[in-house]
């Protein structure tokens, strides 16, 4: 109902939103009376205003309202994007407290996928490896513990990517490694790519698994449906501009030689 009212009467909150966005854009110190304003905005019927308030709490490092971020993250009635930004704000603020950890672990089971993504990312950024976090991440992937490590249930590729990243950081046991191996066989090249890095990350802290990790990474399917255009001319120009920007001493023949295009070698075989 609140959302419907906000949708039908958007102009009522335009002023608040504009002010919040102006504050977000400026890097200056927190203006006076911000606490009352933040409270008013957090109670706004328009989710865009509450969202801006959540971002402002992180941007202004308003420590008195950190607890509100945790409450918003756990409130399933709150708009998905606001919950997502609350998780992101927790990571940005570096809130590595036990209540934040509990809220983020709970958010891994959030029905909205963007919240699960941000919660996994925040856990990876804030906390050290731990068995309960590993279990929560496995539950995120498989739905329930004890499922076959090859049958990932999570349908959203972004969540699988975030889980791979988090398991690489937070995994403690062979179970995490097996889950990463399963993600390395994912249909999406984005997940396979992410899993490859995460396996290497995991292996760095588990030397006993290093040889297996190396072999498994080597065996990951290289098929990719993604290909990013590479504009040779732009790359050359940027490199030349970087060198010129560093002053005449940077314009050494060694630095400039690789930038010349060699027609015999083919312009598209320029060193990248």
């Amino acid at each position, binding site marked *: 109902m609140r*959302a*419907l009212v*906000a*949708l039908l009467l*958007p102009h009522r909150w335009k002023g608040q939103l504009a002010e919040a966005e102006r504050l977000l854009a400026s890097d200056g110190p927190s203006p006076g009376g911000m606490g009352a304003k933040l409270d008013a905005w957090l109670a706004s019927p328009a*989710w865009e205003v509450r*969202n801006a308030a959540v971002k402002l709490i992180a941007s202004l490092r308003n420590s008195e309202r950190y607890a509100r971020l945790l409450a918003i993250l756990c409130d399933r009635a*709150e*708009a*998905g*994007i*606001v919950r997502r930004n609350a998780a992101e704000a927790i990571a940005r603020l570096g809130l590595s407290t036990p209540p934040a950890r509990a809220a983020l672990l709970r958010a891994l089971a959030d029905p*909205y996928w*963007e919240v699960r993504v941000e919660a996994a990312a925040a856990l990876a950024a804030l906390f050290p490896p731990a068995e309960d976090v590993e279990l929560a991440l496995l539950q995120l992937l498989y739905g329930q513990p004890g499922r076959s490590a090859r049958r990932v249930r999570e349908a959203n*590729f*972004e969540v699988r990517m975030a889980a791979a990243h988090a398991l690489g950081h937070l995994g403690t046991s062979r179970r995490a490694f097996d889950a990463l191996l399963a993600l390395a066989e994912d249909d*999406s*090249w*984005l997940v396979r790519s992410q899993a490859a890095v995460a396996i290497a990350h995991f292996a760095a802290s588990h030397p006993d698994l290093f040889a297996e990790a190396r072999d498994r990474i080597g065996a990951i399917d290289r098929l*990719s*449906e*993604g*290909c*990013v*255009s590479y*504009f040779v001319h*732009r790359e050359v120009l940027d490199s030349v501009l970087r060198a010129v920007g560093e002053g005449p001493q940077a314009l050494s023949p060694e630095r400039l030689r690789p930038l010349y295009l060699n027609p015999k070698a083919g312009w598209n075989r320029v060193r990248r």
Partner: protein
Amino acid sequence: MLYLLRHLESAFGPFRLFGYWSFRSMGAVVTALAVSLLLGPLIIRLLRRHGARDQGRTFGGLNVASKEGTPTMGGLLMLASLFAAALLWCNLANQQVRIVLAAALYFGSIGAWDDILKIRHHSNERGLPRHWKYAAQIAFGLVVCVLFLTAPSSPYDPRVARTLVVPLVPQGIHLGWGYALFVIVFVVLSSNSVNLTDGLDGLAVVPGMSVAAVLGVFAVFVGDEALFAALKLGFNFLPGCSELVVFCAALLGAGAGFLWFNCHPASVFMGDTGSLALGGILGTLALLVKQELVFFIAGGIFVVEAGSSFIQDYIGLKLLGRRIFFRAPYHHSLMHQGYSETKVVTRFWILSAIFAVMALATLKLR
């Protein structure tokens, strides 16, 4: 203008060819294509020199900064070749042709104004305000209503003009003056849907060409007396409508010529100049051929793109406060999932061909 040569048939027999829409259609395709290829480098150079360059933008986190600086307003090239071919090969005394030429000019001007503002302000967010664009589109819809639905100016019988042709409903649905509202909504939808689709190299122009081809085929079947009498497809006869096939052919040639420069990696973007014009032209064509619903089938890509944007923006973000798709319009969602631009564009072209075939299949569904 060449249409007038048919009057000199007695002096030189082959001039009778200029009386046939089939011959003039071929001429229109070749002319539009040739003009595009000849003018293309010149117009691109001019756009580059005058700083008509695309401003970098972020689509919901999807960075397309690598395309920043590509000349934009390439729609001018498409419109120039379209007008050259249409003025040369169409019967300019035909009212339908004049209406659709006016649509091209009007929507092209709105788009150009929008593009110029964006370039001047160095920001994609600071073009023509959205409500102004809607107002301009609604204004055109109102003018079309007056021209199309009132007896003195309508090229068709007003009762026929106010009837919505629906596949499997032989008599169609007579909307009366409610059709005026439909026309306005239709013009706004068609114009904006192409505008939303224009987000990747070659993505809008090819589905636009396929819709033009489908509407051209319908224009022939409902407007050519001999074919209409022979085929008995169950449509109302629309006098003068077959002339629109020449215009559609010119649009195909202009689209192909533009694609020559717009294929990935693009040398020029059509900008709003091209996308609003293309949408406005296709919507007006569909109204004139009385195949409004066919537009939604043949232009299925436009429906998917506009529909995904609407669902994301109004139902997802505004009402529910969450994303429904990874990104919108839908091509950005596919890009976000790791598909390369050429793959997405090629698949959309395949889909637009399928949609065109489905639309043509409705010829027999009366």
